[in-house]
């Protein structure tokens, strides 16, 4: 039982650092009178894990029937010897019901992934501030930071009843991760100090990640929404092959290693695939393959690429409530395809969904509130922690147009752009006044926050200052309409704002900003583009500034993609810089900006730091990023992204507020498995 203690020890350490966080958040909320009036922002709460394992277990009636018929082993045998025990938020629930919900197509897999997030190895408590056990009952980080040991639950089963053991990790590591056909390039998550680590089986229920250099961050990575720690549902769907474990007993049949290349390919072709890799990608995807063994509370019975995505309870789910009832309470989830956002919102207002936060549009909040009684739902506003739901991400390595590239790479130019934005206007118009205007720095309550002054730095409207700065840069000549001219050819200086209509109506935000920039003499050309194309162009480094969120950066190390050029899949800040960083200088081009180099250096060093030093380090990075305005924040800490939650009044154990953050896998960390229908 040392393992448990070890976990609790580590958890306590984390909790000690995080404790003020929750209070501060609560305070931040109460001081905002606007929300008080609305009465829509509740208490950040959720089910909690308890150590006492109930003496006996109960199960859903239909499973009991199956047990009686001999088609399923008794519940006690289906559960691990040490199941996870959750104290439901309000009360122990009752079994039954179908959770009706909207999804908007096969690309909306995250909709389900997030509900299945308890298949992660380690997870966060409902406040998003503390690492807690999940699939693993505990972990141990060695003193030197080079080894992280994970302890599995004995007797835990896949959804098909097969045992879930350390071998499933070995299979993932050796047969999938190290197979170049499946994973062409190793991932940074599995490396420390530029060196790839190893995954080793210690015994049936113990595995170890071993690194050559200290990797204090690794447990954090495992708990975060990272490639290594995301869990099977998100990391092995949509063409991904990460996530640390996989159902070996099921997937082996598709791998050439266990037959032969020819046989595996023949098999794939017989099933209508071009080759075995393509077949594997589909077969290991829980959204597509109902046969796939999984660990989450529900499992797909009708795949996502049909008009109705259906999930039913996993009879081998490893979690029980304090009375020994195996979770989840709700029998099944039926997601119906809403072909567009308007239809999804209208149906939600008609009460056709039982709990929906995804795809609910903040701009429609007045209408959503008006229809509360008609649709018999409650509305909750959940506030996010990230600095800016709308962020102008600046390409600091734009080469196609040297003049534009020069200005984008100039800190004072970026600062002037930022000073030229009237954030209160945008907040009123697009956030209904519910956002917090400011820089990209995360909520002050977050441990990585550099402090309140950095929320305001360069981020409060000051047209005079902005004009002085631009004049100071030599951009003094203007055309008849008052727009500044390029210094190379005397033409108007045009800055392209690439915007995608995605989580918010960013093209409209961009238009408003473009209008505001007229006062600082900057002509912004708003380019509304389709998401894939915008990213494709960003990957090619063709964009000037792309408008997107910075959601996830509230925990910088776990999700740095929209803060620093470290992710080779995101070209927002200059893809060559990201390549340079990711390849340790082997590829790409080295940034010339010393501030950028410093920020990247600090970021790289974080892996070897302990908790406290890491947070300090993050604050330093934020100070650089805000001061240099690598990204220009507009308005954040709002319910705009997944924070408008409509919950049927028939549902019980619904938290007043859930954590909106990438690492919380909203609403995953609130354990939807504990929600139930009161009648």
């Amino acid at each position, binding site marked *: 039982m040392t393992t448990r203690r070890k976990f609790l020890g580590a958890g306590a350490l984390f909790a000690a650092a995080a404790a003020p966080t929750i209070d501060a958040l609560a305070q931040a909320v109460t001081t905002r009178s606007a929300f008080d009036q609305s*009465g829509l922002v509740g208490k950040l709460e959720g089910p909690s894990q308890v150590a006492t394992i109930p003496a006996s277990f109960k199960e859903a009636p239909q499973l009991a029937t199956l047990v009686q018929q001999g088609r399923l082993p008794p519940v006690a045998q289906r559960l691990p010897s040490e199941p996870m025990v959750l104290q439901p938020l309000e009360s122990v629930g009752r079994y039954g019901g179908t959770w009706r919900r909207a999804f908007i197509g096969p690309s909306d897999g995250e909709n389900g992934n997030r509900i299945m997030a308890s298949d992660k190895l380690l997870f966060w408590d409902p406040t998003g501030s503390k690492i807690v056990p999940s699939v693993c009952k505990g972990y141990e980080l060695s003193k030197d930071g080079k080894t992280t040991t994970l302890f599995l639950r004995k007797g835990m089963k896949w959804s098909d009843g097969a045992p879930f053991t350390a071998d499933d990790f070995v299979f993932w590591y050796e047969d999938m991760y190290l197979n170049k056909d499946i994973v062409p390039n190793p991932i940074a998550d599995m490396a420390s100090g530029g060196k790839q680590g190893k995954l080793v089986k210690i015994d049936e229920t113990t595995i170890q990640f071993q690194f050559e250099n200290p990797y204090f961050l690794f447990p954090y990575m495992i708990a975060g929404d990272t490639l290594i720690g995301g869990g099977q549902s998100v990391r092995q769907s949509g063409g991904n092959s990460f996530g640390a474990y996989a159902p070996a007993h099921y997937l082996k049949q598709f791998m050439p290693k266990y037959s032969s290349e020819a046989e595996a390919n023949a098999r794939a072709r017989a099933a209508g695939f071009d080759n075995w890799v393509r077949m594997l990608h589909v077969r290991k995807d829980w959204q597509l393959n109902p046969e796939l063994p999984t660990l989450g509370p529900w499992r797909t019975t009708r795949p996502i690429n049909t008009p109705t995505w259906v999930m039913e309870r996993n009879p081998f789910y490893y979690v029980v409530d304090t009375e020994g009832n195996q979770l989840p309470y709700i029998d099944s989830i039926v997601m119906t395809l809403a072909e567009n956002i308007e239809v999804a919102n209208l149906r939600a207002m008609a009460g056709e969904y039982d709990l929906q936060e995804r795809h609910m549009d903040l701009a*429609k*909040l007045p209408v959503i509130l008006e229809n509360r009684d008609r649709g018999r739902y409650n509305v909750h506003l959940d506030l996010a922690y990230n600095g800016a739901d709308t962020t102008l991400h600046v390409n600091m390595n734009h080469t196609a147009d040297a003049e534009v590239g020069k200005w984008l790479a100039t800190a004072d130019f970026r600062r002037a752009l930022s000073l030229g934005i009237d954030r209160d206007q945008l907040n*009123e118009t697009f956030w209904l006044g519910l956002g917090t205007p400011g820089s990209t720095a995360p909520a002050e309550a977050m441990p990585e926050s550099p402090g309140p002054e950095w929320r305001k730095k360069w981020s409060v409207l000051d047209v005079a200052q902005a004009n002085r700065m631009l004049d100071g840069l030599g951009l003094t000549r203007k055309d008849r309409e008052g727009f500044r001219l390029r210094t190379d050819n005397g033409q108007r200086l045009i800055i392209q704002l690439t915007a995608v209509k995605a989580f918010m109506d960013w093209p409209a935000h961009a*238009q408003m900003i473009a209008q505001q920039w007229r006062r600082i003499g900057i002509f912004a050309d708003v*380019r*509304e*583009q389709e998401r894939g194309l915008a990213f494709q162009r960003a990957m090619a480094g063709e964009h000037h500034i792309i408008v997107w969120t910075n959601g996830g950066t509230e925990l910088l190390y776990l999700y740095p993609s929209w803060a620093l050029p470290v992710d080779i899949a995101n070209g927002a800040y200059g893809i060559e810089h990201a390549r340079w960083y990711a390849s340790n200088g082997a590829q790409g081009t080295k940034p010339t900006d010393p501030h950028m180099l410093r920020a990247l250096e600090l970021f790289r060093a974080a892996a070897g730091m302990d908790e406290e030093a890491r947070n300090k380090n993050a604050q330093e990075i934020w100070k650089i990023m805000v001061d240099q305005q690598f990204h220009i924040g507009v308005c954040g800490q709002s319910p705009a992204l997944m924070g408008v939650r409509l919950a049927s009044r028939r549902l019980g154990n619904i938290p007043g507020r859930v954590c909106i953050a990438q690492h919380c896998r909203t609403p995953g960390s609130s354990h939807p498995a504990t929600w139930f229908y009161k009648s």
Partner: protein
Amino acid sequence: MAQIDSEKYAVATQLQLTWWRFRRHKLAMISMVVLALFYLLAAFADFLATQDPHATDARTSYIAPQPIMLFDDDGSFRPHVYGIRGVRDMRTFKLVYTVDPNRKVYIDFFGRGYEYKLFGLFRTDIHLMTLKNPERGDGIYILGTDLLGRDLWSRLLVATRVSLTIGLVGVTISLFLGVLLGGISAVYGGIVDTLIQRTIEVIRSMPTIPLWLGLAAALPNDWSVLQVYFAITIIISLLAWTDLARVVRGKFLALKEEDFVMAAELAGASQGRIIFRHMLPSFASHIIAAVSLALPAMIISETSLSFLGLGLRPPAISWGILLQDAQNIQTLALAPWLLISAIPVVVVILAFNFLGDGLRDAADPYG
């Protein structure tokens, strides 16, 4: 000489006859006047606009249409609007505007506003109506404002200009293609004719929207607004010329047998001369009718494409874009006046239909 004169005379009477017959269609006459008005509005869009159609302001978001008061308290003619202030109700999250009847903001005629180019040529900032000493948030909101606080009346004017020109340009291209291909088809006959006719049949039996969508989606997404504008016009007209071509071919074939064409041919006139001198004028009225019937289809096409996000994109302003802006639940519930944008679309399409019908009847009373 004498022969040419008499020719002119004959042609003139043909057109004149058409005009006489046309004048009898009251609805068509009214439509013509309406359309003339619309094109006039479009020509003077910026002059008539009361505000910069692009200027955003959160303080003026979702203001319902506000009337212009014509007379002052003392009964004198001094048009003015009232000051208006908005507050967000933090329970319903709606913006609530209150009119302050004590604060009058007077209207200046031919005052100075934002700068624009009249007819794209003359730089000026004179507008029909501007406000005298406005405070921030004051404005002439005849048709209300949108989410970004932009004045709908001003936007609608500019949109009208864009959409009507797209229609005209598109129809011109269609007309060119239609007359050219229809004419070739009729003049050369044989394989050429068969080929062109089969092409027309194929194009006509294709579902157009998927095609537009396919072609529009294939446009480079990084094109500027102007490039997209022209590309969209060309795409629409590429699929719209078939009707015109059929009309032209039919008339050509009919006329070929007519005496005066035969006579010209016998007199040794060149083919080009026969076509342009003799044949085209004699069915000019049919072409005019066909064109006026093709225009509304053009306009609807642009509107549909923009509506689907595959046509023009903001910050361009067109009818389709205004309609797309209005196509969401919050608009219907909170700012239904934005649907006003649909009215000019409907009116113009109706007017073109009536006009086209009138012209067709006038040109061809028996056909």
